[in-house]
């Protein structure tokens, strides 16, 4: 049972970045723009968030407050970076795949460059202790207490909160309705007076916001507050895309998909702790590959019936 708690406790901080970035991707794609630059956005947000932490870590601030400030910085940087994609895709009608790839390549290079210049290392290392051993009071609840309120990070709670907010905005507001219309049938939206260009900018901006936060939460929860230009975010940006497709662009499904993928990954690193798996004596590398293989299998099954936003990737042209 302890192992089970351990697995869940370790899955959650890994799932949250996937969840947030996938949600961000969902907003963009549902507005009609393909965002392949998520990997880059994550790293960008992580980088600035960690820099912020670095600045603040020696002040006497509460670690969680530092985390929140870092998160806000990461969010803003994410939005700014995603504007590069927005401009290229929406105004210049450039190929969205190439632009996304360029932006993904730019960031690790920039991070490495900066880190080597300023710190003579591959990234940013911080000293902050974000880890929460026990949440007062709540950690005493049987079962749930151990699952959610012990050995965790603030990122998990913020992540769930953002999920709820995002879902509400997506389905219950005027904005969400209009955004979704632009990704399915931009001509219909245009014919009722909605500005498709503006909506798509918002869509991309939101993915920048969530992507930046997701990246920062990745470095907090998975990399212990560090950022590395070589390993970046280990493909989480792309895994998030897979989570998004697997979740068929719907928030609740995305939640389950990210939990599933994060669980596989956690399993990979915890093999030695699970006697049953340990005895199978399977090389750890296979476990590490699991999320990626699972993604491919998921794609094979969903591509047949996949219900991607109809107008995604197609630049909006009023004359049509």
């Amino acid at each position, binding site marked *: 049972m302890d192992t089970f708690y351990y697995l869940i406790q370790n899955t959650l901080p890994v799932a949250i970045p996937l969840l947030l970035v996938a949600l961000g991707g969902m907003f963009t794609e549902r507005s009609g723009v*393909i965002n*392949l630059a998520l990997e880059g956005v994550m790293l960008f947000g992580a980088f600035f968030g960690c820099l912020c932490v670095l600045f603040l870590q020696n002040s006497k601030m509460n670690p969680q407050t530092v985390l929140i400030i870092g998160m806000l910085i990461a969010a803003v940087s994410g939005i700014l970076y995603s504007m*590069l994609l927005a401009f*290229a895709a929406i105004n*210049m*009608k*450039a*190929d*969205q*795949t*190439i*632009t996304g*790839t*360029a*932006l993904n*390549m*730019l960031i*690790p*290079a*920039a991070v*490495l*460059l900066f880190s*080597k*210049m300023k710190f003579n290392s591959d990234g940013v290392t911080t000293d902050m202790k974000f880890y929460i051993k026990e949440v007062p009071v709540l950690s005493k609840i049987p079962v749930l207490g151990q699952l959610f309120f012990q050995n965790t990070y603030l990122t998990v709670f913020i992540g769930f909160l953002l999920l709820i907010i995002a879902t509400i905005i997506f389905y219950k507001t005027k904005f969400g309705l209009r955004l979704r219309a632009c990704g399915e049938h931009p001509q219909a939206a245009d014919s009722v007076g909605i500005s498709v260009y503006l909506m798509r900018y918002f869509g991309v901006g939101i993915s920048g916001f969530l992507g930046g936060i997701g990246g920062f939460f990745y470095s907090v929860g998975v990399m212990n507050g560090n950022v590395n230009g*070589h*390993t970046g975010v280990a*493909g989480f940006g*792309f895994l998030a*895309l*897979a989570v998004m*497709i697997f979740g068929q662009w719907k928030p609740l499904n995305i939640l389950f998909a990210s939990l599933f993928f994060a669980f596989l990954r956690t399993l990979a690193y915890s093999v030695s702790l699970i006697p049953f798996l340990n005895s199978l004596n399977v*090389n750890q*590398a*296979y476990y*590490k*590959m699991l999320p*990626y*293989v699972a*993604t*491919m299998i998921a*794609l*094979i099954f969903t*591509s*047949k019936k996949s219900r991607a936003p109809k107008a*995604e*990737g*197609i630049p909006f042209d009023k*004359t049509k």
Partner: protein
Amino acid sequence: MHKSKFSPQKLLKSKALSAFTAALLAIILGLIFGYIIMVIASPENSLDGFNMVLVGGFSRLGDVFYFATPILMTGLAVGFAFKMGLFDIGASGQYTMGMFFALYVGFMWKLPGSIHWIVCIIAGMIGGMIWGFIPGFLKAYMNVHEVITSIMTNYIGMYLVDMWIQGNSVMYVPSKTRTAYLPATAQIPSLGVANSNVNVSVYIAIAIAICLYVVLNKTTFGYELRATGFNKHASHYAGMNSKRNIIITMLIAGGAAGLGGAFAILAPSMITGSSMTYEPVSVIAANGFNGIAVALLGNSSPIGIIFASLFISHIQRGGTLAALFGYKPEIIDVVIAVIIYFSAFAMLMQTTVAKYFKKHRKNKKPESNANEEPVVTLNKEA
């Protein structure tokens, strides 16, 4: 008014010219960006540093060719696939897989010196082909988007190769976390240029580029490929077998990228008794992504790619030399990424320029087919 001055002859030339100027524009913008970074980092050395980036490569010509070879191959992989409308972002994984197959044959098979390295190279090609086949097959038969499957195969390939290497006691030296030195018979013969590892693979790579050029432009297969990349509806109308063509294209692209990996790892070392080594530390091969830059700059044409790879290698050498002035070579990676970003619009500029010339020519003709499709060299599938 628009008589002989604006003949279609000029138009054709200007289309090719605009592709070149588009690439040039993207390059200039990237370099300017790099220069700005240099100024921010260390203003007093910036002019010297920038100058080094621009001309440093000339003093290291052997190395320029040496380092150009792997990205020439990955550039060919990406460019060839582009011609058919496919984005081979999996070049890194194919490169790594090719490298592994080459290593395996190098270490585990004992063959006479004259053919050992040749067999290794072929093994590398096969490794890449297998790795290219996977996304190709999934795309052709299950309509799965090749970008995400390729990215996944990049990671899977990386983990597999690292695992296989680490598990092989002949290949791997745990204390150094690197592969062992390859036997001399497996290494590609050097060209004997002083201070450089440049070797026969350069010739092979260029020969392959020329071959691919011939395939694309002179064979019926190339005819079908380019037709499909330009207009898949017309290809369907003409009865072309798109499923088969997608798979063959990805096999060729994969093979090219695999060769890139093989060439990189089988290169001879200037220090006798040693060789190139690989460090299996779960990193995606950068040369795969640089291949994308090469393909875009070379406008997906094999001959253009040869020059683009030389250019990229040239500024990379310059960047390494700029370290003399205190600059980190990573600046060049940033420059390359910026070049790619701008070349995505640069193609749009090429379209706008071509359209502009076309409008002038066609101004007088009554044409009720008002909506023309824009001239796009790269066909994407969303």
